[in-house]
């Protein structure tokens, strides 16, 4: 048998699933003793170039409470044309179309390699994708210009039949009518007044046939025109119009006096955008794309007043309960996010400003609807421009890498229940037999709605083993889980992707080694981190850290090999060896530490952490450090201060930042200009190598990372120094002698200290 590593990798490639445990403890009690819950990271729309969708509909289990989909794990009686549901054991007749099946003539969904399969649903009207731009006009002139250009550019990237709309806001909110000739029209709303969806629709004239102009052409039943046609138009029709309109966009004309922030009605603008789509295209794939250059300063959802002398809230203010507007604003955006999610639309936030823009309050809009969140310094940076462009990237089939209005349903065999999910989703509150009473993440349901997702969107799904200890699973029994994702493909097709997986049960007492060996420490680290981050949203930071520590200690106690009270004897097996290190870096990460981060940054980091796949998540937890030197080819090195050497170039990837750091000597050489001398061409190549690698990462990643090119002693070197393990600090520098590396001026504990404490605690019998 292949190693578990290969097994895990194969499973991930085929199904987009990584489990924390790949052999499952067979009773509830044992499962809880495993410390790390049984859980998986699921990438529902993982790109599968080798998986063409099938053009028919899935076969469902006929039991109404089950409705599981026929899969390779089902037992099939080819003669009787029956199949047994592997979740509820219902025996089902095949539908008439399947009369021809036999052992040699199997439909795709019965073949083992199709444990993940995608169906295309043909019925139902297809509706075009909708893109509604919500644009802040309180920007600096060049920022606005850059944004306008990006938006104009995006028109050419949109599918031609997609509907687009434009809302601009500043002190007022303007909904632009796109269909008109001559005079450009817009509907204007006060930026201070919250309106209900009904009011918005009334005021936009969407409730009645808005244009009574449609002269009844008797006898000619013209197709039901979109009532919203004035505001949402197919790109190909109003391409020119909209380009001109965007070109003419002016900065918000209302005067801003000295010492004031411009009045920015983000809350109302978003509310109107939501209301507009809610009334006209419910449950159709739609993106609301909010571009904002500053914090909302008036109306519902305001985050800060317009007095510049009052700064926007910091973590300090929040802790002191000093953030006046935060609760109210958060409530406003949560309400909007929930409405949007209900309608199956998603909200993207593109916030570009040097100061905070209120992402903390608005984060739920993106988090709950599966929208993107992009944070930059200015719209006039490549970070924004390229990130925005990348939204409209296409896959190998030429389809946009976006899907809409998905529902994810999880079915489990009866020994398991689903406890919750963490990711860009909202609960659909569907109770069922497989829903656990204990919640981990968003729980209490077996279905979630993911309004916007892309091939990398990944959810953490947590399970609970409910099999009682005294009812052992028969030998060789397997537990099964089915993930059913229904979504609107970017080609506007409705599709269903079904992934059915099974894992072996094992008795934890007799077969602990099996279970141990099948531990996926990477997945476990990410899944635990998600739980931690999820808790951090509602709990105090130290509590979360304590909880993480306790879990880690318990895990070590459970799976470490040691003699009681002898820390030096402590050993962890290979499958656990990296886990404590992940936890060490997680504790220091911006997901759990708010020190040095603004509330907006924390929200931004957490947003991305909760949706990226395993690889990216791991990079976020423990950044990757590559070393370039004359001593050999580029190699990954420890994320440790000892890796910072004078003759090295370091490339660090933290997901959010790409840092290139030139060691002291290298920096001096470069300063001396050796790279320009022909005889030192190899030095030039050495300098170039990390740049090329960085470009490669920059090209692939969404959102585009911040690119930092710095050197020893440079101010931006702090990005590197704050990440590495402070093995050398001013405290122990001399103890280490004049060895290599760079001391970090910090009181943070180093990995060594952390591990020492961990061992001590793990072996102690006290806890």
């Amino acid at each position: 048998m292949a190693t578990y590593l290969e097994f895990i990798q194969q499973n991930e490639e085929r199904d987009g699933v990584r489990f924390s445990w790949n052999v499952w403890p067979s009773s509830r009690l044992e499962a809880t003793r495993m410390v790390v819950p049984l859980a998986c990271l699921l990438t529902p729309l993982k790109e599968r170039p080798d998986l063409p969708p099938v053009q028919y509909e899935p076969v469902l289990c006929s039991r109404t409470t089950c409705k599981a989909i026929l899969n390779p794990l089902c037992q099939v009686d080819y003669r009787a044309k029956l199949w047994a549901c592997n979740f509820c054991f219902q025996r089902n007749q095949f539908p008439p179309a399947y009369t021809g099946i036999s052992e040699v003539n199997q439909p795709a969904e019965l073949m083992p390699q199709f444990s993940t399969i995608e169906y295309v649903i043909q019925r139902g009207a297809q509706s075009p994708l909708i893109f509604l731009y919500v644009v802040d006009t309180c920007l600096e002139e060049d920022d606005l210009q850059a944004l306008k250009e990006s938006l104009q550019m995006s028109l050419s990237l949109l599918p031609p039949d997609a509907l687009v709309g434009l809302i601009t806001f500043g002190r007022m909110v303007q909904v632009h009518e796109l269909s008109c000739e001559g005079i450009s029209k817009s509907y204007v709303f006060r930026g201070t007044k919250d309106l209900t969806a009904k009011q918005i629709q009334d005021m936009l004239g969407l409730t009645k046939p808005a244009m009574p102009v449609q002269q009844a052409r008797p006898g000619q039943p013209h197709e039901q025109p979109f009532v919203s046609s004035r505001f949402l138009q197919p790109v190909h029709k109003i391409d020119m119009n909209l380009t001109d309109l965007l070109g003419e966009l002016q900065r918000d004309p209302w005067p801003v006096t000295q010492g004031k922030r411009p009045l920015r009605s983000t809350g109302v603008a978003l509310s109107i955008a939501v209301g507009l789509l809610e009334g006209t295209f419910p449950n159709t794939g739609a993106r609301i794309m909010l571009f904002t250059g500053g914090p909302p300063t008036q109306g519902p959802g305001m985050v800060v007043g317009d007095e510049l002398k009052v700064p926007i809230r910091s973590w300090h203010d929040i802790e002191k309960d000093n953030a006046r507007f935060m609760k109210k604003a958060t409530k406003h955006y949560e309400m909007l996010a929930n409405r949007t999610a209900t309608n199956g639309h998603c909200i993207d936030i593109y916030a570009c400003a040097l100061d905070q823009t209120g992402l903390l309050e608005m984060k739920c809009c993106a988090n709950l609807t599966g929208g993107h969140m992009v944070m930059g310094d200015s719209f006039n940076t490549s970070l924004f421009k390229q990130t925005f462009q990348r939204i409209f990237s296409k896959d190998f089939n030429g389809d946009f890498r976006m899907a809409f209005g998905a529902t994810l349903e999880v079915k489990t065999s009866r020994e398991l229940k689903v406890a919750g999910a963490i990711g860009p989703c909202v609960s659909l509150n569907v109770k069922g037999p497989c829903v656990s009473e204990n919640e981990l993440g968003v729980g209490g349901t077996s279905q979630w709605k993911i309004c916007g997702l892309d091939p990398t969107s990944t959810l953490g799904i947590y399970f609970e083993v409910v099999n009682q200890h005294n009812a052992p699973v028969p030998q060789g029994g397997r537990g099964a889980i089915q993930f059913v994702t229904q979504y609107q493909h970017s080609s506007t097709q409705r599709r269903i992707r079904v992934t059915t997986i099974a894992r072996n049960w094992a008795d934890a007492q007799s077969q602990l080694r099996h279970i141990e060996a099948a531990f996926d420490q990477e997945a476990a680290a990410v899944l635990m981190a998600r739980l931690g981050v999820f808790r951090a949203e509602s709990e105090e930071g130290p509590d979360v850290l304590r909880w993480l520590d306790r879990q880690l200690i318990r895990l070590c106690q459970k799976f470490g090999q040691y003699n009681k009270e002898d820390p030096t004897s402590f050993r962890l097996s290979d499958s656990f060896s990296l886990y404590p290190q992940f936890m060490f870096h997680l504790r220091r990460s911006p997901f759990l530490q708010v020190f040095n981060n603004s509330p907006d940054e924390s929200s931004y980091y957490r947003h991305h952490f909760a949706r990226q796949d395993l690889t990216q998540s791991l990079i976020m937890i423990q950044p990757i450090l590559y070393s370039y030197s004359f001593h050999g080819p580029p190699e990954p090195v420890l994320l440790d201060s000892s890796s910072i050497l004078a003759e090295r170039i370091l490339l660090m990837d933290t997901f959010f930042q790409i840092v290139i750091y030139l060691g002291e000597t290298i920096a001096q050489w470069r300063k001396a200009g050796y790279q320009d001398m022909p005889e030192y061409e190899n030095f030039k190549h050495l300098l170039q190598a990390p740049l090329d690698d960085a470009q490669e990462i920059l090209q692939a990643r969404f959102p585009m990372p911040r690119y930092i090119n710095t050197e020893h002693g440079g101010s931006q070197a702090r990005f590197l120094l704050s990440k590495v393990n402070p093995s050398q600090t001013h405290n122990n520098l001399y103890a280490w002698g004049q060895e290599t590396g760079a001391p970090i001026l910090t009181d943070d504990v180093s990995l060594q200290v952390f591990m020492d404490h961990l061992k001590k605690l793990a072996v102690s019998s006290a806890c």
Partner: protein
Amino acid sequence: MNVNQSAPPLPPFGQSQPVYPGYHQSSYGGQPGSTAPPTPYGAYNGPVPGYQQTPPPGVSRAPPSSEAPPASTAQAPCGQAAYGQFGQGDVQNGPSSTVQMQRFPGSQPFGSVPLAPVVSQPTVLQPYGPPPTSAQVTAQLAGMQISGAVAPALPPVGLGYGPPTSLASASGSFPNSGLYGSYPQGQAPPLSQAQGHLGAQPPQRSAPPQASSFTSPASGGPRMPSMTGPLLSGQGFGGPSLSQPNHVSSPPPQALPPGTQMTGPPGPPPPMHSSQQPGYQLQQNGSFGPARGPQPNYGSPYPGAPTFGSQPGPPQPLPPKRLDPDAIPSPIQVIEDDRNNRGSEPFVTGARGQVPPLVTTNFLVKDQGNASPRYIRCTSYNIPCTSDMAKQAQVPLAAVIKPLARLPPEEASPYVVDHGESGPLRCNRCKAYMCPFMQFVEGGRRFQCCFCSCINDVPPQYFQHLDHTGKRVDAYDRPELSLGSYEFLATVDYCKNNKFPSPPAFIFMIDVSYNAIRSGLVRLLCEELKSLIDFLPREGGAEESAIRVGFVTYNKVLHFYNVKSSLAQPQMMVVSDVADMFVPLLDGFLVNVSESRAVITSLLDQIPEMFADTRETETVFAPVIQAGMEALKAAECAGKLFLFHTSLPIAEAPGKLKNRDDRKLINTDKEKTLFQPQTGAYQTLAKECVAQGCCVDLFLFPNQYVDVATLSVVPQLTGGSVYKYACFQVENDQERFLSDLRRDVQKVVGFDAVMRVRTSTGIRAVDFFGAFYMSNTTDVELAGLDGDKTVTVEFKHDDRLNEESGALLQCALLYTSCAGQRRLRIHNLALNCCTQLADLYRNCETDTLINYMAKFAYRGVLNSPVKTVRDTLITQCAQILACYRKNCASPSSAGQLILPECMKLLPVYLNCVLKSDVLQPGAEVTTDDRAYVRQLVTSMDVAETNVFFYPRLLPLTRA
């Protein structure tokens, strides 16, 4: 006598001053005002060239009447000849007039004053000056009686008409002059009627013979001179007819002399002129109607007498057939007489308590210390010293003030005085402004306030020595020391928020609902606005108007337009949140016309197209005003909204109205609700508008009930106007609407005004009528005030007045001019005080009285049943006359109605008021019409009420 004295040397400041109306001469559609009227006149007016050469108003304003003064100058010693000259002038109208005209506007009005008028004037005025002796009084009384055999001469109701019928039979009772002998013949010549208080004077004695000398030509030959009055003067009638051209039910208001005059050959009327001259002064005194044979306008209402009979008064004992229409005092005659007597001489305002000529008379005014009657007219120029007297007489004491009245081009508009940073000089106690009546004492170091007697220091920079009469040496150099009307430049203290105002703005707000589109209104209006925006009011010699414009269209939502000059196309911004109105844009909404012309033209071209297919029938109203007001607020300026509205605002919005028209309420106690607004929302809105200086002019184009009573609340309280075109059709109503619109847009207007009337101790302004808002009891707040708007002020005694010092009024108006300058306009008027009731009755002005009484009554209908209001009016009139009879008239038979000379038209006019649509609606008069008329009258001036209540009837064909 004092007239002579007060003819001052020419004040140095009398130099050329910018004259507002000057730019009218830019021949935009001809002369804006006079477009309509000339046609009817032209028809019969052929022979009189002077009138038809109207186009440049400056020229047309110089009618033969103004030509007369110079003529009489030459002939000064011989009044007769002067008159004769007049006749000749009539004949040789063309040439001479041009000569004169050049003289007039060219030379300074003050400069030309000197002698002629002054010399001739005293002869006219003298009789008023000296208090009448008792002998005179009695003579007078005798002259004023109307004897009648009818008993109920003085019953409270229905009076006035009864007695005159019996004139013929009573003729014998005229004891004292042969004059009366002519009455019975029923053809007493117009010029020879009775003699009023001049009765005792010699010339009067000579009158009868002369009168009889031209009784014979009943054909109207003698009418000729009087005809020249209305025709040549033009002004008298032209004015009112233009300013209220859209009364619903009133016939064309041109005043025409009766038919006979028309038919009369326009030939020279030679013989009578000479003979007339002596009688000339008597004209004033005719106590009752000219015994002219054919008098068509009396004929119809009278003998038929159905309306008369229907009055709820006591039954007339006499059968109606015994009424003799000829015996009734004829307004036409009175008007003509006044015109003939007083039209030729300038009215010099130097003396206290002078009764000005009638409003129908075309006369020039020379300001020598009292405000021109164009600005202020009083019901009486001699007011009782005590409140007891006033109560007894029941003559209301009121002033009709038109602070920004337009002046004929011959008269200079008030001088602007700039006192620099210190601002205008005021009394420390009562805050009255420096005026000619202030007494300088202590060698000029102090002055005593003429209103409150407080002694104030004269600031050093204002100090000036006094001459031997106690007058400041520089009195004639300073308008505020020598004129009745002048303006101060206000300092920043007089401005809102202590900031000088920005130039005002006009916002055109156009209803684009289905009705407005279908009737063609929107297209017509947009077309017109394209050119009209070039003629916004501008100040003085300014090249272009400082006023900015903005455009809004609306049905049940509002559309604002961005017409910024940098835009290639206008932008429309729709605001559908009518419940909570706001202005969606700041920059580009209010623009300078010349900068944004291309965009504006493009917008006005597109508006009719954009809404051509609209099916929207619902409209909003209050949010529209709110929006305009907010726009002005955002732009931090005052301004005016022009609303063009078609239907009852039934769309869901603040100020939504119901159709509550209920004709069954007429003649019930609930009738008053028809005049009251449906909701208080509009009052609140109006209050906000006033605070912002936002004046609202409303043009209504209803096809059915629109509830004018409610819709007009805001215009009414903000100093705006309401125009109404029922069932508007472009073909029929275009002319009328466009001329109203042009006039309304072009007229000079002040914004954000506060008016205060101060009086000398003894009387107090207690009540105000007009289109304005008052937040306290003294300050009249006007968001906008134009040259047609009048404020009527009623005074009451609060103390004894002094005969010697008289009573003083000072009306101060603080306003923002159309160029955005903050100014104070001051009008001063001194009145006489009397201890004898007879003096009161001799110095009354019936037209003003009617103006006041009508306004009083029209306000009364808001709170009382209409019948009560009518009864009150009748009672008051009866009491006035009864008091006169009791206190001033010599004993006469009980059946006689005795009318004071000044009030001889009171019963006639009052009857007109009683029969007006508001107080006694006909079957076809709609509720809206009544509400419309009610508010219309509220801000009318005397000339307008005169012609409104007593419309002139012009036969256009030979009978």
